Each structure stands twice: as C-alpha cells, then as structure tokens.
C-alpha cells in the first residue's frame, strides 16, 4: 500500500523536476554566449586601437608595429615553420616538465595529505622553496643542468610541482568525513578506500592544481628559454627582438597567447570528460 502511494508520486515528482531543470538551463547558456561575444568585442576594439596607434603614429617607436603586420608575420612564421617549429619544441619541453612536476606533486601531495607527520616535516621546506622566482634560479642551475632541455624541463617541473602538491594535499585534507565513514560502514578496506574514495574525492582539487600548473608551465618554459639556450619560442622572441623584427616578436607572443588559451580549453574539455560529475554548480 505504501508502495502504491509512493510510485505515482515519484513519477509526478520526476516530471515536475526535469521540466523545472530544463527551464533555467538555456539562460546561463545565453549569458555565456553573451559574455563571450562582449569579450571578443573588447578584444577587437583593443586590436583596432593597436592598429591605429601604430599607423597614425600615436605611439612612436621602431618596436611598435601595426597589428596587421603582426598577423602577417604570424601567418608566414606558422607556414614557414620559423615560428611553428620553436613553438612545438617549447610545448614539448613544457609537457615533459609538466608531466614530471605534476606526477611528483600529486604523489607527494597525497602523502602529505594522508600523514600528519610527513606534513609537519615536509611542509615548512615546501613553503620555503615555493616563493623563489624561477628567473632567479635559472643562472645558478645552469652550472648543474647545463643550458639545454634538462634545465628547462627541470625548471618547468619545479614550477608545476608546487600547485599540484598544494592542491592535492588540500584536496585530501578536505575529503568529507561522511564519505570515509560510508566506506567504513560498508566494511571497505584501507587500500580500497584510498583508491575508490579518497582519490576520486580529491580529483577536482588535483585538477584545479594541474590547471594552475599548466598556465605556469607555459610561462616558465618561455622565461627559461629567454634566459638560457637557443631553442624554443622564448629564444625566438628574444632573437626577433634583437633582430629588429618586432612584428615577428609579437607574432610569437600572439601564438603563445593562443597556445595558452587552447591549452586551457583542452584542459577544461578533458576535465569535463574525465569528471562529468563536476558539471554541477
């Protein structure tokens, strides 16, 4: 009898709810498109100002080419490989360092989150090293790592390591006790709890750490390339600066901006794929 009372009510509740949840859905979408459009409009206005400031001589200087010249240089450089090859090599180095730094950061973050003693010992060291700016450590590092890929990969790994570590640790510490208790009441063992509960519960935090890291990784790779060695887009930027080819220099900067944007987008897409439950909110 209770069942018969419940069943139609469920059906009613369900239809009412799905209808209710579909109504507000298009609104954020429209808002999203709206902010997108005005964002692009703002960029277009800024670019138009850039073009005018150079063409009309508002900004005088041999290192201030019109934006159209930058676009042409970007087009040529991409097709000819002069720009695209260094960019690819930069991305390669970045991904290598990023992968190493993030793996170590996540692993250590899990450990620090899980064990109070390790946290007490390791955290002060981490907090001491973390604020050191990367450009400051590149020259002394050259003595140990040379000037080529090892140096850059190391520096990028170092830069990626900290956000991965800190976010992972915070994620582990923030796992809700109710989830752990749920695993306990179903008599799930320690290792399965770590694997099946703690790790997935920490994933969103890890992901946000990895996303911070990917932005940093690109910047740090380029900075390291600008300081040392003769490879990658960072070196290309400096080289074009010294060769008095500001159009090519800004073209490289433009490519970097696009790369950063694309990386972030790809990351978000991957995140949505891997963590569909993150779609709420």
């Amino acid at each position, binding site marked *: 009898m209770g069942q018969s009372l419940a069943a139609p009510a469920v059906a009613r509740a369900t239809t009412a709810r799905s209808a209710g949840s579909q109504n507000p859905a298009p609104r954020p979408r429209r808002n999203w498109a709206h902010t997108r459009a005005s964002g692009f409009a703002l960029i277009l206005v800024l670019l138009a100002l850039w073009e005018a400031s150079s063409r009309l001589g508002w900004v005088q200087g041999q290192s201030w080419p019109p934006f159209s010249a930058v676009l042409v240089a970007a087009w040529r450089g991409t097709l000819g490989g002069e720009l695209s090859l260094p960019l690819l090599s930069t991305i390669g180095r970045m991904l290598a360092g990023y992968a190493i730094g993030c793996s170590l950061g996540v692993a250590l973050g899990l450990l620090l989150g899980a064990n109070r003693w390790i946290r007490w010992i390791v955290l002060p060291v981490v907090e001491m090293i973390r604020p050191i700016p990367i450009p400051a450590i590149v020259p002394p590092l050259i003595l140990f790592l040379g000037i080529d890929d090892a140096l850059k990969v190391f520096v990028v790994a170092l830069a990626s390591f900290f956000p991965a570590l800190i976010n992972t640790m915070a994620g582990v510490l923030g796992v809700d006790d109710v989830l752990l208790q749920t695993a306990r009441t179903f008599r799930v063992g320690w290792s399965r709890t770590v694997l099946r509960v703690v790790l997935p519960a920490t994933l969103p935090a890890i992901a946000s750490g990895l996303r911070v890291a990917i932005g940093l990784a690109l910047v740090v790779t380029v900075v390291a390339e600008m*300081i040392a060695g003769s490879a990658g887009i960072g070196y290309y930027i400096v080289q074009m600066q010294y060769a008095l080819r500001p159009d090519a220099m800004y073209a490289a900067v433009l490519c970097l901006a696009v790369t950063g944007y694309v990386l972030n987008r790809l990351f978000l897409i991957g995140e949505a794929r891997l963590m569909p439950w993150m779609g709420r909110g």
Partner: protein
Amino acid sequence: MLNRRSLLQTGAALAVAGPARGAELERVRVSIIPINDVTPLFVAIERGFFRNEGLLVDTSPSAGGATGIPGLVAGSYDIAYGNVVSTLLAAQQGIELRVIAPGTKIQEARNDHSAIVVRRESGIRSGKDLEGKVVGVNTRNNVIWLYARAWIKATGGNPDRVTYKEIPHPQMEDAIRQKQVDAGYMVVPYVTLATAKPEFEKIAHPYSAVQLGVDVGQYLATASFVQSKPETVAKFVRALRRGIEWYNANLTNPDLLPIISGFTKIEVPLLKTLTLPPAPLVVEPAQMERTTQLMIEHRLLRKPVDVKALVAPMAL
C-alpha cells in the same frame, strides 16, 4: 633554425671538398651572441674552414649573452664568445678560463660604431652634462656600463652622479625618444638605425675615446678543456683565423650579408646599411690589462687579474 644551420653546413661541405671529407668530424659546441662580432666564426663555418680541420662547429646563440660562461662551466659548451669584462669578472671569481682566440677589437676610431646617443635638442655634449641624468646601458656592471662611466669621467663628469638604467639594446632608441633615459649607449645595428633619424645624435664613441685598441670580446674555453684537448683548440683557432682573414678581405663583399642574416635573423636590406669593421687576428694582453685597471677604478674588480695567465699562447 638548427636544421637550417646544419643544412647550410652540409651545403658548404659539399661545395668545399676538404681533406677531412668522409672522415668522422669532431663536434665542438660554441656559445655565441648573435651580433656581427662573431661573423668570422660563421664565415669559417660556411666556407668549410672548420671542416678542413676535422671539426664540426655547432653554435648556440644566447641572445642575452649572460649564459655563455655558466654554460662553459657546466659543460654545455666547449667554447664561448664573451666580452672582456665578463671574462675578467669570472677570472676574479676563480673560474679557470682561458682566452683562446680574438673576437672584437676597436683598432681605429673610424671603426668604432657604438656610441652614446642623445636626443638632438637635449643639449648634452659631455660627461659633465650627464651628471644628474639617466644613461641607458644594456647591463649594469658590464662592459658597456664600464666604458660609459670611463667616458663620463674622461669628459669632466662624476660617473657616480649619473643614474644607469638597464635597457635592452633594441629598445634603447624608443627609451631615448620617450625620455626614459637622457642618453643611451648603443651598439650596431641599433645605433646605425637610430642615428639615421634627424632627432638623434651621437655625442661620443666611448671605446675609442677611452681606450683605442680595446679588446672588447674574445673566445673562451675552460682551462681544463684547453689542457685536455689542445689539438682541438689549436684546430679551432687555426680555422677561425682563416675565417677572420677571409672576413677582413671581404668586408664589402655582398656574400657576407646572407651569412650575417643567417645567424642574427636581421634582414639583408637592413644589414646593407651597416659598415662592417675589420676583426683582429690576435689578442693584446696589454689592452686587457688596461681594461683591468679601468675595472678596478670603477670598483668592478678588487685587485688586478693575472691577464698573462688568462690568455692562452695560441691567442697571441
């Protein structure tokens, strides 16, 4: 870029059949600064002089130029092109370096193209006029800074009453125009471009004014490399000297321009406007001694450096 260079090298190797052809070439890694100073090195590469000695020279440009000596010490490079002040500073710090070959030298005043540039209407003429003003240099505590100070002192100014602001060479022109600095010590090709415009004016050539004959830059190796591979070093210096001779004999040869453009990435039409200075065949320790004295005078060095020990015999 690396591909392009090795392509050029292969091309040169095919064009110039040398005795070492087909044999295993010894690889030498050289750190360079992509400026005209190292053109003879690239001439020697392009014309196969290194290949004839059995060497394969692999160049790594370092645009800032700050990583040459650290790279040498780390073993990333075998040889590095560096300026005399950096070399002397490193020597003072106890880094065992050897000057193995000449690079750049201001032999005659008319070949000294680097200059202190001001806005024409600024009225600045001498070091005295620069007191209380701001001078742009690429790097503080280095060669440009040193000779700027020395010139200011030589023309009646107190170099300590001048502010030195670090501006990268390519941005110096804009910095002077926008009055971020009152004067800028500019080098080729930037100085040539700037002073072609009526608003700018050269007021001095500090190198030749302070120390005609100054050895500005040289090729370096670590003492241990020179000791362990004397043959390699000797071959390198021999081939480089042939490059210098060819360069000096072909200063106005249009064939030079694509070579320079190849490693500086400066476009050929711009290079055509430059006058190329001849390169030295030997290093003069006496000139390096004078630089040492200047460095002591301007508190870059605490005590003299043993220049005689620093310069390897094959550089003389």
